[in-house]
C-alpha cells in the first residue's frame, strides 16, 4: 500500500463484496431452486434459503430423467457435452498445432494463401453463416452425431495464431541443435516443440473446453435425436417442453449441473485459464 487511508480501503472492500454478491446471487437462487420440490416451486414468494430436496432432485435428474416425458437423463446429456467439449478442444488444438508448425517452420508455395485462408475463419463466427453451414453438414450426413457436432467448429484462426506466436518465440538454435542431433521435422515437432509449448497447450485447452461445453445454437440445429442432446441445449428443450408449467426445481438442478464442470475448470485451473484467455485474445 502506498498510503494509509483506511476509509478508501474499506470502500474498496465494500464495493468488491457487493460485486461478488451480485455476481453470486443468481447462482445462489439456482442452488436454492434446485433444493426444493415441485410443490414448493409455484408458491409465491420463492424461498431464499435452500430446502432439503437437493439430493432427491439430483437423483431424479440422473435416474428418472428430465424433460417432457422424463426420458432424458441428465447423465447422458452431460456425457454428450463432455465428448463434444473434448473433441472440439482436442481437435482445435491438434489441427492448429499442425498448421502453425507448417507455417512457421516451412517455406513452401502458397504458404501465405493458406495463412490467409485460416485467417478468414476468424471473421466468420458460426452465428452469421449458420444456414449454409447447416446445409453442408446435412449434405455430408453428419446430423445427429458427434462429428457433425464438433468438426465444423474446430477450424480455429485464434488457436493457430497463438501457436504461431509461441513457435516464433522458440529460439532458432533449438531447431538447429535438433537438426545437428539428427532430428527430422516430425521428430523435432514431437520431441522438442510439443514439450516446449505444453503450458500454452494446456491453457488453450481450458479455454476451448469451456467454449465447447457451452455450445448452444449449433447442437440445437444438428441434433434432433434425443440421445445426442447436450446439457446446455437440453435446458432450452426443457423450458420449451413445459411452456406452461416448467418444472423449475429440475430445470434449476440441470442448470446447476450444466455450469459445474466449466466453472470447476475455471476455478481449479485459474492460472492456466487466465494465461489462455489473455494469450489467445491478443
Amino acid at each position, binding site marked *: 500500500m502506498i498510503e494509509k487511508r483506511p476509509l478508501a480501503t474499506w470502500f474498496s472492500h465494500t*464495493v468488491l463484496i457487493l460485486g*461478488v454478491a451480485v455476481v453470486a446471487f443468481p447462482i445462489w437462487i439456482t442452488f436454492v431452486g434446485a433444493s426444493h420440490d415441485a410443490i414448493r416451486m409455484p408458491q409465491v414468494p420463492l424461498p431464499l434459503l435452500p430446502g432439503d430436496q437437493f439430493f432427491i432432485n439430483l437423483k431424479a435428474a440422473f435416474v428418472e430423467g428430465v424433460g417432457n416425458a422424463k426420458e432424458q437423463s441428465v447423465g447422458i446429456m452431460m456425457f454428450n457435452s463432455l465428448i463434444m467439449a473434448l473433441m472440439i478442444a482436442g481437435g482445435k488444438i491438434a489441427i492448429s498445432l499442425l498448421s502453425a508448425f507448417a507455417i512457421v517452420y516451412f517455406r513452401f508455395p502458397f504458404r501465405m494463401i493458406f495463412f490467409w485462408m485460416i485467417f478468414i475463419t476468424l471473421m466468420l463466427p458460426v452465428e452469421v*453463416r449458420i444456414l449454409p453451414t447447416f446445409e453442408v453438414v446435412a449434405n455430408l450426413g453428419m446430423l445427429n452425431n458427434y462429428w457433425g457436432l464438433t468438426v465444423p467448429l474446430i477450424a480455429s484462426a485464434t488457436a493457430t495464431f497463438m501457436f504461431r506466436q509461441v513457435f516464433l518465440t522458440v529460439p532458432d538454435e533449438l531447431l538447429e541443435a535438433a537438426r545437428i542431433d539428427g532430428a527430422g521435422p516430425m521428430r523435432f515437432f514431437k520431441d522438442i516443440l510439443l514439450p516446449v509449448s505444453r503450458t500454452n497447450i494446456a491453457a488453450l485447452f481450458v479455454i476451448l473446453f469451456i467454449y465447447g461445453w457451452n455450445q448452444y445454437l449449433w447442437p440445437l440445429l444438428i441434433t434432433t435425436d434425443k440421445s445426442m442432446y447436450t446439457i446446455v441445449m437440453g435446458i432450452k428443450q426443457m*423450458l420449451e417442453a413445459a411452456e406452461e408449467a416448467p418444472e423449475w426445481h429440475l*430445470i434449476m438442478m440441470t442448470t446447476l449441473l450444466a455450469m459445474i464442470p466449466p466453472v470447476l475448470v475455471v476455478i481449479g485451473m485459474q492460472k492456466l485459464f487466465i494465461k489462455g484467455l489473455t494469450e489467445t*485474445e491478443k
Partner: protein
Amino acid sequence: MIKRTHFKSSPLPYLLVAPQILITVAFFIWPASQAVYQSMLLEDPFGLKSEFIWFENYVLLFSDEIYFSTFLRTVVFSSLVAFLSLSIALLLAATADHVVRGTRTYRTLLIWPYAVAPVVAGTIWMFIFDPTLGIVSYFLHGIGYEWNHRLNGNQAMALIVLAATWKQISYNFLFFLAGMQAIPKSLIEAAAIDGAGPARRFWTIIFPLISPTTFFLMVMNIVYAFFETLGIVHAVTKGGPAKATEILVYKVFNDGFIGLDLGGSAAQSVILMLIVITLTVIQFRYIERKVEY
C-alpha cells in the same frame, strides 16, 4: 513471420495444413460464399425454384423499416451491454487492484461467470424474473412495480441486457485487472509522492495507461453483444414480445430457419459478416498500434 532456418520444402507442410484447410473450405469459405450467392437469389420456401435477382434482397432489406429498427435495437442493446459490463468491471478491477490483501480471492470469486453458457445465464435470470413466481419480480411487486417481460418489451430488453451484462463482467474484469497490474508500481508510487490521492491517481495515471485494454475490450464486447448473445435471446425472449428484443443475429436465424426466407436471411448474413470483418480490421489496427506502444 518465418524462422531463419527452416525445413526443406516437401509434401509434408501441405499434409500438415490439410486438415485445417479442408475444414475451413468445407465449413467456412464454402458456406460463406453460398451465403453471398443465396443473398442474390429469390427462392420459394420449398427451394423448388430460384431466380437470380442481384442485389434486390439488399435493396429490399434497406428499405425495410423492420430491418432498420432491428438494426437500431441491436445498436442500443450492444451499447448498453458494453457500457454496463465495462463500467462495472472497471470499478471492480480498480478496487481489487487497490486493496492489498485479497486481490486474488476476489479475482477467483469474480471470474467464474465466464464459464457459464449464455443460454444458462439467460435461464437463471428468467427464473429470477419470472412474472408469476420470480423472486425479484415478487419484490418489485411489493414496492408497486409490475414486472412482466413476456408482455412489456422494455422489460424484456432490460432482462436480456442484464443477463448478457452479468455474464460479460468477469471477462472484462480479468483483462482490466491484468492491465492494471502490469503498470509498474513505481509509477503509482511516484504519483503518490507527487501528492495524488487514489481517485486522482486512477483517472490521471491508471486509466490512461490501460486505454489500449479498454479499447480492445470495447471491440470484444460489441462482438459479444452482436453475436454471442443469440443464445440468451433465443432462450429467454425468442425476440419478443412483438420483436422488442429481436436483434440482428437473431433475425438472421429466425428468418432463415423459421421464416424460411432464405435469400433475405442470406443477405442479412452477408451484412453481419461485413460488420465482423470491419470490427476485426479495427482490432488488428489496434494490435499494430500496441506493438509500437
